[in-house]
């Protein structure tokens, strides 16, 4: 009699705990702000993934209730302090077979939806838009591929200011999840991501669209999405890629098709304007101003804010190259130095930016060369090799 009660009580307790856990997770997902579960997301695939996730949670939960139920029952009812005599059975081929076969069947039951979802996830045929996503230490570059007209490409850097990170000013709402220039995509269109990396492995992850794909230097991976709801979706690099792995977020701005087209037109126009600058002679001040901007976003993290060098890269202030022949200086910026952290910026920047940054480096922090590079020089130098 007594053991009966205990048995029921245990089972009830165990099931309640698990159910409460599961329900809490579901509830919390829906309540805004503080989320505890995988986001359901805004694409068909992400919803499939979420459904599969919840299904497995429930199956495992039920198995857990069963298994731990029996265990707690034994722990309560078969205690030595109750004066029970231990049984001596230690074998039963039947139950052994049973508990081999039943889990196996459960696994097959799980494998079906998993296979289906995976196949859907992998079906990247017939995209409307192709975007080349390239991971750099520590920023993302987006390049819209199948466009007519001017090519559009830009880098997307962390925007959170340093003093927020170092607790010197209050942290904003999107602390560490904000970038200077987000990726913009139209809703309702099939967008294919071609993902690669420049230096080490990164991984492009946006939970709300259930896309995570490794960016592997030298290889192009593919993934895709078709976002259903306008909004801003945030993610982060998901493969350890060095010092600032935690500081290379991803922001996807999903907008209506019209908005997207307008944005694209503006981008193309800006690109055309820059191209126009390419053939011009620019004054020193313009080059210096632009160069400072480029330097601070792209070079300072290794070479130091004042060209003083860091543990990663040598000082440029007074360095042999930065105060030597301008062609050598240009060459290392364009080609990088294979086998070191110094990347080939020739493929990252346009000629204008390269000209500007080299000019800036030669004429700042006490470097006083007085010479300057024009975009056309850079273009010629690139062709020359």
């Amino acid at each position, binding site marked *: 009699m007594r053991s009966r009660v205990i048995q029921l009580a245990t089972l009830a307790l165990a099931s309640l705990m698990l159910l409460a856990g599961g329900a809490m997770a579901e509830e919390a997902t829906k309540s805004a702000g503080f989320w505890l579960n995988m986001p359901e997301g805004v694409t068909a695939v992400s919803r499939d993934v979420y459904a599969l996730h919840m299904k497995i949670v429930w199956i495992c939960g039920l198995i857990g209730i069963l298994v731990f139920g029996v265990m707690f029952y034994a722990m309560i009812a078969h205690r030595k302090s109750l004066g029970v005599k231990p049984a001596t059975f230690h074998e039963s081929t039947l139950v052994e077979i049973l508990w081999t076969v039943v889990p196996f069947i459960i696994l097959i039951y799980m494998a079906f939806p998993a296979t289906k979802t995976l196949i859907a996830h992998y079906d990247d045929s017939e995209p409307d838009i192709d975007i080349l996503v390239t991971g750099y230490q520590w920023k993302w570059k987006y390049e819209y591929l199948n466009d007519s007209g001017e090519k559009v490409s830009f880098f997307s850097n962390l925007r959170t200011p340093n003093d927020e990170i170092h607790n010197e000013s209050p942290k904003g709402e999107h602390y560490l999840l904000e970038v200077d220039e987000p990726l913009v995509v139209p809703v309702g269109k099939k967008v294919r991501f071609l993902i690669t990396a420049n230096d080490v492995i990164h991984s492009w992850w946006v939970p709300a669209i259930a896309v995570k794909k490794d960016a592997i230097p*030298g290889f192009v991976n593919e993934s895709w999405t078709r976002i259903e709801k306008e909004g801003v979706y945030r993610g982060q690099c998901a493969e350890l890629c060095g010092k600032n792995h935690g500081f290379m977020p991803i922001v996807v701005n999903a907008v209506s098709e019209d908005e997207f087209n307008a944005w694209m037109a503006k981008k193309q126009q800006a690109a055309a304007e820059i191209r126009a600058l390419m053939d011009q002679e620019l004054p020193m001040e313009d080059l210096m101003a632009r160069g400072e901007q480029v330097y601070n976003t792209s070079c300072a993290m290794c070479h130091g804010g004042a060209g003083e060098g860091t543990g990663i890269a040598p000082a440029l202030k007074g360095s042999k190259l930065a105060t030597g022949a301008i062609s050598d200086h240009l060459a290392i910026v364009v080609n990088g130095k294979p086998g070191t952290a110094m990347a*080939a910026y020739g493929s990252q920047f346009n000629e204008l930016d390269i000209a500007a940054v080299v000019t800036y480096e030669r004429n700042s922090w006490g470097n006083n060369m007085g010479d300057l590079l024009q975009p056309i020089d850079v273009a010629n130098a690139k062709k020359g090799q």
Partner: protein
Amino acid sequence: MASNQGHASYYVPESTRFPFFAAIGLGLMVLGAGGLLNDRLAQADTSTHTWMLLAGFALLIVILWNWFGLAIRENLQGLNSAQLKRSYVIGMQWFIFSEVMFFAAFFGALFYVRHLVAPWLAGEGDHDGFTNTLLWQGFVSDWGSTVLTPQQALLAAGGEQMIAMNGTFNAALQDMSWKGIPLYNTILLLTSSVTVHFAHHALKAGHKKPFHVWMVITLLLGFSFVYLQGVEYHHAYTEMGLTLGSGIYGTTFFMLTGFHGFHVCLGAVMLTIMFLRSLLAGHFTPDDHFGFEAASWYWHFVDVVWIGLFLFVYIL
């Protein structure tokens, strides 16, 4: 099968100084090696670390020499029961198995780069060829005829460098043919496996003289193999332009044949020692000669690895 004899006299030495000092030797060696490599990368003076490496190595060798010497003496004194000897046998078998797995890693790498990576870089597979069109234009996957690296193919095709190259790779002028030296080496090594087997038979029959003769032949064959391999490497480096830096072809070629060559040297040293033990110290009887047997197993193992190499590195 294992359990019924010899238990009562399993010899457990009271204590031993060898392992601890061997550990010091190994530690010194490794510190030296690590430092040496870093000096090299930093283009600094390498002499201190070179000495450390050599000192550690010397210490290790001296200790292993004495350690094995002690084990041999104990055996001659009759301390080793049949059961203890079986422990040595089992130890050697599993050691060889671990060596097999080491080579498996490199063979696996070869298969992977050759049959999966090369086609992917050339645009095959279910990735719509973007790896090729976006990154490595001009690269074709034809392992074994031209051995241009993706980097060179891209530059040759006038493509723009898209990503950091992480190193520079030269191309070999031609790939290795299996004819000539590799074929001779195959014959040498296969023959030596047979001769070492004859040596074993002679030893088991108690015929020391033929044993020594067969051993000499085996060793001659083994050393000829090493010599020819050296000639081939020289040829590769100086005339074919095939080096460790020749992209993945040179990488897998030299790593596989190099590690094999290193193991041949080890095996040859072992066999030489066994030969000298028998010749100079009169060791080994028809039914107690595990030292020799272990070395001969090792030799057969090295031979089998070579067959794999000959097939997968040279011919196919």
